[in-house]
């Protein structure tokens, strides 16, 4: 029996095609996946991501706990949370991997700074149970409480017009705070939480709201002309944005240094012995594998798990690939040995086809960058 989000009936009403995603019955597309993709690049689209989880950490030593658990350093999160006299809170966010002792990626997540004794994580759907078990095994030593906020659901609203469409529906004082939000920060009022974050390469919000409020805001956004978008468009958008998908571009067999996420690992504080650090230090000078971006030179479509061949003979594999609607061509991310030298060819149905190596992102804010 698949799990259903609070918006499930809305998807059925809109005629969505539903698929099993990590045990959830989720919309892959409504009408045209390409139209949904372009709506986000050009105006605004929304995604039911209520299968993902908000996890609230509470306790005086939460920051210290997260400095151990996360490869990025929450010491960077300095903007204080709620001002005492103000009902609306504002805090910064950080993207990080959570690693095991071998430096493998347990999950990638966003951590929001709410208060010195309160941080919020947003984690992937398929990894929620594993993440909670990991966090709860480590938390007691720090007196940190790990709360899975299954009473909250997440709705991503993305695109150049997304923030204005959402702001118009928020209580005035929250809307004012949101209008002034810098990228990668959040504002909240009670249980209504607005992060200026996303997974598309466009401006926008990820709203974390009480489950009971999701249908109303979905309906209001629909009426405001925001396009409902499925997981299919979410995948082509994040691929163009050069963003990794957990379980596909990385997992516990891959370190962040091998999947293009070295920028998210903070080695700066030499005294910070985050979990996985020793393993990463050992491969830091020369990671055994690396992630590269590829653009197919000719026609055809790159997909995940295609063979990749470097000009020096080294072999690898695409981790994600697909048609890039904004580029009207095909792109991929691939993992190859650290010693591989481009250019690279990819094997499609028995033929080795030339590609151009690029540094992702491929597309950002509606513009092709490669």
């Amino acid at each position, binding site marked *: 029996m698949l799990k259903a989000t609070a918006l499930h009936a809305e998807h059925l009403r809109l005629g969505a095609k539903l698929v099993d995603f990590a045990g959830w019955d989720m919309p*892959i*597309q409504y009408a*045209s*996946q*390409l139209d949904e993709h372009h709506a986000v690049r050009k105006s605004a689209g929304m995604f039911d991501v209520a299968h993902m989880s908000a996890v609230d950490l509470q306790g005086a030593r939460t920051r210290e706990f997260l400095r151990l658990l996360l490869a990025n350093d929450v010491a960077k999160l300095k903007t204080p949370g709620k001002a005492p006299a103000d009902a609306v809170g504002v805090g910064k966010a950080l993207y990080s991997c959570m690693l095991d002792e071998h430096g493998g990626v347990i999950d990638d997540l966003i951590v929001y700074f709410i208060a010195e004794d309160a941080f919020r994580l947003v984690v992937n759907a398929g990894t929620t149970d594993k993440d909670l078990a990991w966090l709860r095994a480590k938390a007691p030593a720090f007196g940190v409480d790990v709360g899975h906020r299954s009473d909250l659901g997440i709705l991503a609203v993305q695109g150049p017009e997304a923030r204005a469409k959402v702001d118009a529906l928020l209580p005035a004082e929250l809307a004012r705070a949101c209008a002034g939000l810098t990228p990668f920060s959040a504002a909240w009022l009670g249980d209504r939480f607005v992060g200026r974050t996303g997974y598309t390469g466009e401006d926008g919000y990820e709203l974390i709201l009480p489950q009971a409020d999701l249908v109303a805001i979905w309906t209001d956004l629909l009426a405001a002309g925001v396009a409902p978008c499925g997981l*299919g468009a979410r995948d*082509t958008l994040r691929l163009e944005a050069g963003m990794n998908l957990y379980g596909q571009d990385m997992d516990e067999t891959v370190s962040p240094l091998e999947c293009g996420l070295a920028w998210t690992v903070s080695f700066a504080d030499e005294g910070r012995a985050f979990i996985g650090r020793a393993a990463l230090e050992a491969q830091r000078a020369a990671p055994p594998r690396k992630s590269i971006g590829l653009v197919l030179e000719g*026609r*055809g*479509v790159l*997909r995940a798990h295609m063979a990749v061949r470097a000009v020096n003979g080294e072999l690898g594999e695409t981790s994600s690939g*697909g*048609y890039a*609607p904004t580029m009207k061509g*095909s792109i991929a991310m691939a993992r190859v040995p650290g010693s591989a030298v481009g250019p690279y060819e990819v094997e499609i*149905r028995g033929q080795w086809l030339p590609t151009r190596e690029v540094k992702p992102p491929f597309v950002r804010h509606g513009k092709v960058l490669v």
Partner: protein
Amino acid sequence: MSNTPAELKYAKSHEWVKKLPDGTLLIGITDHAQAALGDLVFVETPKVGRKLAANEACCVVESVKAASDVYAPVAGTVTETNAKLGENPELVNDAPYEGGWLWKLQPDKLADVDGLLDADGYIASIA
């Protein structure tokens, strides 16, 4: 509800076949198939002159989601392919029985077409 014209013949593997006055066959994929595939972004048709066996995988249609084979409904030789699909693969989505045709085939035996499904038979096969 997908469209399945009564005047065409069909293969279980979702191709349609139309007899042309010159004795060749026009071949494409059904409305049901294009809807299931989603937006097409690339079509690789068989080369003109290629001899095809019945049920041979000879054409690839790639949607935003996946690549799928298209099979020769009957044996024969490819005489023409739809050149417009190079720039406009979405024709297969927009007009699967008209502008979105894939290739023309000179059948080895025209009578082979009679062995294919009629519209009702195809509708029953996808029910």
